[in-house]
């Protein structure tokens, strides 16, 4: 059974159709890539899956459960984590605190005033571990707003991981990042994909074709192709969109 199943999702903004009958079925452990030209509806699809937008029609299932139209905080609790194309960090929290807040939300009483911030060892150990995984251990006491853009992207991923998701949605994790930092982030994604299901939106087609098990191509709100990287790179329709021939 698919861990993430999107069935005939349609999203209209007024008269504009951003998504039309989009279907997506992601198996457990898969690294799925989503590509498509600007305005194809990639981020809108993520927004619908993660609860930021309510779909006009269609259903979303996570681990067999209907999560269509639930608010983001509930969908997060069901095991979905996501990052954002334009980084959304907590500017005045440190790296460590930002990750800590995410882990804390999984606690039975995340608001308990008698639990200390410092002394909760299972939370703090996990937070330090996540700092290490994304390579921000040395910078864990820096304010998020003082990080470089690439490091903020890494922090984004760490924050998404902090809620211990079954499925991770990454929205252009290497966009606007220096080539060297991008290489580090790609290695991180490959490493993570061994342990969890990842859906990756990427602008760079090369990266997606190199990393992903399976690729979905969106154009003008529709799925126009889906298959292995080899199939996609041979697909005439995809070539036409990307090369304009």
């Amino acid at each position: 059974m698919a861990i993430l199943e999107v069935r005939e999702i349609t999203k209209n903004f007024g008269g504009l159709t951003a998504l039309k009958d989009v279907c997506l079925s992601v198996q457990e452990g898969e690294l799925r890539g989503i590509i498509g030209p600007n305005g194809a509806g990639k981020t809108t699809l993520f927004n619908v899956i993660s609860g930021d937008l309510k779909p006009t029609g269609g259903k979303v299932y996570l681990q067999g459960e209907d999560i269509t139209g639930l608010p983001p905080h509930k969908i997060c609790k069901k095991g979905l984590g996501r990052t954002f194309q334009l980084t959304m960090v907590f500017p005045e929290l440190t790296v460590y605190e930002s990750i800590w807040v995410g882990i804390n939300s999984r606690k039975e009483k995340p608001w308990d005033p008698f639990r200390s911030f410092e002394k909760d060892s299972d939370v703090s150990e996990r937070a330090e571990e996540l700092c290490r995984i994304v390579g921000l251990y040395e910078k864990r006491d820096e304010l998020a707003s003082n990080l470089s853009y690439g490091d903020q992207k890494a922090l984004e991923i760490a924050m998404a991981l902090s809620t211990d998701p079954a499925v991770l949605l990454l929205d252009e994790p290497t966009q606007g990042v220096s080539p060297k930092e991008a290489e580090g982030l790609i290695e991180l994604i490959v490493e993570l994909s061994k342990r969890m299901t990842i859906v990756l939106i990427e602008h760079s087609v090369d990266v997606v074709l190199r990393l992903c098990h399976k690729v979905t191509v969106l154009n003008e709100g529709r799925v126009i192709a889906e298959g292995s990287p080899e199939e996609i790179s041979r697909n005439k329709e995809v070539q036409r969109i990307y090369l304009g021939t």
Partner: protein
Amino acid sequence: MLFGFFILTVLGVLMPRGPRSLAMQTMAFCIFAMAYDLCFGYTNQCSLGHSVFFGVGAYGVVLSLLHLQSGILLGLLIAFVAGMVVAFLMGSICVRLTEAYFVIVTALFSAIFHLLSLDMTWLTGGDDGLSVTLPDISVGGVRLSLYDPMTNYYFILVFFLASYLLMRRITEAPLGKVFISIRENEKRAAFLGYDPFRYKLAAFVLSGAFTALAGSIYALTLRYATADLFGLYWSIIPIVWCLIGGVGTLVGPCIGVALMFFFQYYVSAWWTHYLILFGVLILVILRTSRKGLLGYLLGR
């Protein structure tokens, strides 16, 4: 900050009458300022409705004393709980709203409560207010009278210290971090599994309860409550305290209160239009540091 409390403890004995009664009011307002900071500084909700809680607290204790003969400690508890309940009801409506809408609707609540309290003279005494005689407090067989200035001073100091420690505990606990994360980026906090509405409401209710406590202690020092306590002035003044001293720090707003009092009672002695100076000072402080005096000092 704890050093500050130590100084206040020693000063209680040393201070002459005048400054001491001033210090008592300052402490009551410090509780108000910290409570407001919980809402404004920690969850970025700029409420213009806190006079409601201040007035509810003041009338909570005065009416309990007059009609229930409840004794002072129970009266304060009633005021605290009343503040909590009113904040919950008001917050259930207001907290859903964002930014300007939140500000306007909270201001409307403040106006409604003010008009009602002016109108319902049978309950509130309207503009003239209600005076109250303070009964003795008996704690563990010892009887204390708040008419003794020294006792009154330490009574308020104890509540000031307790409020500070409680709010410090809340803001340093996980809850405080969640508040800050919602302030910093509400959407992101939601995607980390927190319901922003619920946590903002929690901050609003805690803030309302402590504001009511401040109101009730203020009413005890005045020995009366009046409809004026619901006035818009009491909704705006905590914003001023927080902005001067530094939002989101708890201690900063107390500095704001102290500075305001300094102007109100000492600078006004040689120039009656001291508020102009104060206004200029606010502008200068905010121009230099967006996070007020304390933010400036900590940032260096």
